């Protein structure tokens, strides 16, 4: 029987003891961090990086190079610092230095710390974003991601953590990794919880719609939606709202299609920025409702004159929509810097 089979399947699914203890610890301490890192080792390493950055800021003489970070880590906690394997391989392009500072393998996870520093100008800042421009080549099956973990105002050095999770039981000790970056964005502006000047009580069914070919999307329901609707139906862009408060993003439509609320924005020259945003609804109690899915489409694949449209879709009936207000989170970028940074280095374990 399906129900029994489903119950048996779920009996294997439960939070790890460590995860549960972390949450219970937060409950006991009555303090909430935005994100807890479930691996205690990883948390210690992150604390060390932050602490080291603070120390570097107070020691300008040695802050000019990245090497002191190791010394500081050993000073703070040799037991954690022992997991770091110095790499210190760098690549300079367009006056900007990319350096792989250290790498370690812990169980099946490789953690690599990479810094970038502008040697000639001030193009690196605390909002530096590699967006989709980095690649991580490795000779084994794995998943990988890269996140910025810190920025030092004094040295203008931004630090990224690359995490690679090997899957398949291979021994990755000694394998070589190539990390490359072709461009990055900086001087970004973030807008959170921004009230959008739209009265949802006046929203009606769309007068004009179009069938488009989606070139991507978001939200967990996106893939499911496309299983039924290979080519989503979208709003026909209208003249951008004059009082939309975000430079770099145009508000080009809001209306109902087939009982679902569609909200459309447009970004010009999308390949030169990472301007994007998400809408959500709030009721009078402040409860938020995220869109069920969103999709992107363009009217042309040409880079010149290209406009990317993003359409958020809410499964909220028209008769209920007046009870909500529209809010959004947005990010716009002010500068794109191109270069050719590429570093190849070995992964080595000290365990």
């Amino acid at each position, binding site marked *: 029987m399906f129900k029994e089979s489903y119950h048996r399947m779920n009996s*294997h699914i439960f939070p790890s003891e460590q995860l549960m203890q972390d949450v219970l610890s937060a409950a006991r301490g009555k303090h*909430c961090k935005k994100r807890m890192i*479930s691996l205690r080792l990883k948390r210690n390493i992150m604390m060390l990086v932050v602490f080291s950055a603070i120390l570097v800021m107070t020691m300008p003489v040695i802050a000019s190079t990245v090497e002191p970070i190791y010394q500081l880590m050993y000073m703070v906690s040799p037991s954690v610092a022992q997991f770091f394997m110095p790499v210190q391989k760098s690549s300079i392009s367009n006056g900007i230095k990319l350096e792989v500072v250290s790498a370690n393998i812990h169980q099946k996870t490789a953690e690599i710390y990479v810094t970038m520093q502008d040697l000639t100008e001030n193009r690196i800042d605390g909002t530096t974003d590699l967006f989709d421009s980095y690649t991580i080549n490795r000779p084994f099956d794995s998943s990988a991601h890269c*996140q910025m973990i810190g920025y030092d105002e004094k040295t203008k050095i931004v630090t990224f953590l690359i995490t690679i999770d090997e899957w398949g039981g291979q021994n990755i000790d000694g394998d070589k990794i190539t990390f490359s970056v072709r461009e990055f964005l900086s001087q970004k502006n973030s807008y959170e919880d921004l009230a959008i000047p739209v009265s949802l009580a006046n929203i009606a069914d769309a007068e004009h719609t179009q069938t488009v070919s989606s070139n991507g999307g978001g939200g967990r329901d996106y893939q499911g939606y496309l299983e039924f609707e290979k080519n989503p139906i979208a709003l026909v862009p209208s003249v951008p709202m004059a009082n939309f408060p975000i430079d770099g993003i145009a508000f080009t439509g809001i209306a109902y299609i087939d009982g679902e609320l569609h909200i459309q924005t447009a970004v010009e020259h999308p390949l030169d920025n990472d301007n994007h945003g998400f809408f959500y609804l709030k009721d009078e109690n402040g409860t938020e409702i995220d869109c*069920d899915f969103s999709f992107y489409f363009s009217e042309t694949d040409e880079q010149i004159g290209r406009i990317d449209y993003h359409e958020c879709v809410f499964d909220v009936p028209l008769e209920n929509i007046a009870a909500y207000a529209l809010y959004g989170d947005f990010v716009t970028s002010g500068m794109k810097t191109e270069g050719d940074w590429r570093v190849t280095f070995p992964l080595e374990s000290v365990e």
Partner: protein
Amino acid sequence: MEPQPLCMDESAEAVIKCYSNMVYRLAFARTGTRHDADEIYQEVFLRYIKKQPVFENEDHRKAWLIKVTVNCSKKLWGSAWKRKIVPLEETLPFETKEAIDLYNELQQLPTKYREVIHLYYYEDMSTEAIAESLERKSSTVRTQLTRARAMLKNILEEDQDV
């Protein structure tokens, strides 16, 4: 089905222990990975600890946790950060072929169908209760349940009780 105990003790610790599996399993049902379920699980209970909401009864508490779990998983997937990372492949937590096959079949379903299936068959919620928790119309939930069953036809065709 494992009986869902009521939380006689309303302390945050007791509530977390009480609803730990419910939140985690719903998060897993939606996301399909332990990695994402871990993150949602933390976020849900951190919100609970931070907001310390007061409920009229245990059903309301359960409905709140379900709603927040669904919202957190939507938020996770909609975040700019999530759009940039490579999906994590991970070892499945299942030991039997039956469980692995069922998991793979379920992963073919849209997320909103998986959550409806989970709440209906695992949490034993009525379509009306699911609609209330997910802020959808009952008719929408029933349609999604029907479509999900149709898509799970290979599994369900010999199952007369579903």
